């Protein structure tokens, strides 16, 4: 019985760890290094945290989180603006999301 529990628990933990890794890749957490790499001087940890929160909560209602590195930085504000009505974003949330995505985009891949 113990062996059976172990054989179920081990793959389950592996899946969970792998999924956490996948989540962190598409929406990297806001660390000190991340804040330092922020795209604009106006960005701060609070704004970036808010942007990440919007990204992982609102965007997934309609689609999988995209690989931001694939997008041209110049297109990101326009894409966010286009989808912001659908996601019911306030102006502050929209700005925070753009700030976060531009920072993710500027990270080394």
């Amino acid at each position, binding site marked *: 019985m113990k062996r059976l529990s172990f054989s179920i628990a081990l793959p389950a933990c592996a899946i969970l760890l792998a999924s956490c890794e996948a989540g962190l890749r598409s929406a990297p957490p806001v660390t000190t290094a991340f804040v330092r790499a922020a795209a604009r001087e106006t960005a701060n940890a609070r704004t970036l945290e808010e942007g990440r929160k919007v990204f*992982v909560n609102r965007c*997934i*209602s309609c689609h999988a989180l995209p690989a931001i590195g694939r997008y041209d930085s110049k297109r990101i504000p326009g894409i966010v603006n286009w989808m912001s009505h659908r996601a019911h974003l306030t102006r502050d949330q929209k700005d925070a999301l753009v700030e976060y995505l531009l920072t993710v985009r500027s990270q080394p891949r």
Partner: protein
Amino acid sequence: MPPSSGGSKPFPNPRERPSFSMRSIAPILSLVLVIVVIVMAAPAFAGSRRFTYVYEVTTSPPGDVEIENSITWKTRKPDDRGFDQVDFRHELEFGITEKFQAAVYLADWNYHRGMSAGERGFSLTGSALELIYNLTNPVADPIGLAVYQEFQGGYHRFESESKLLAQKNFGRLVVAYNATLEAEWEGDGLEERQGEFQESLGLSFEVNPHLLFGAEFVHEIAFPDWSAAESGKFFAGPNVSFRRRNYWATVTALAQVTRAGDEPDFQIRTIFGFSF
């Protein structure tokens, strides 16, 4: 008992089912129509659902108002080959906070025919209130969790449905699981009671942002009069979800894998929503 998330259940004794004519449901239909028109005028967007039997852990954003309509066609029971039933649900959903949403099922009604369904005709099952509170996020946290509570009231009938919702997003693949406990009271003094435990699992893959394919599985065990459990019933089938800028639709076809005589062999559920 058929898979019940979003569906209605047959009455224990079909002859006690309150049937009525089109004339008697006209006021209800008018009310639904008026509310639909009001909602159409509001600047809202319907949050698209990947599944029809399985609930996801994500909630509507605050201030959001959505309308969802659900149609479920159930047909052919092993003990009643002539059985057909079409269930209708009309839902208004409100985002209250970032993590909390409420929904009102305005009128659950159905058209039925067949030996086990009693007299051919329409039935009004009742109205319901649904509450969902999100606990964790399916991307940022190891697992996304939410709790769900629904209260349904109808003609000599009251039902409580509690769910624990779990979900994990693996990029374009979403896996969701629901554990449901239902309690139901029926009859003149609500003296007839029964319970049910249900598990459902859904997998959905996003081919592109407009098209998703997947499958849903439902397993349920009924407890008539809250005593000994009946044999488990199992349903499985594919689903597809289509979404565009201002509308979406999700369809699931389920076949009964077990041979329970009082359950439909096939059922198809469609949920569609609009943005305005």
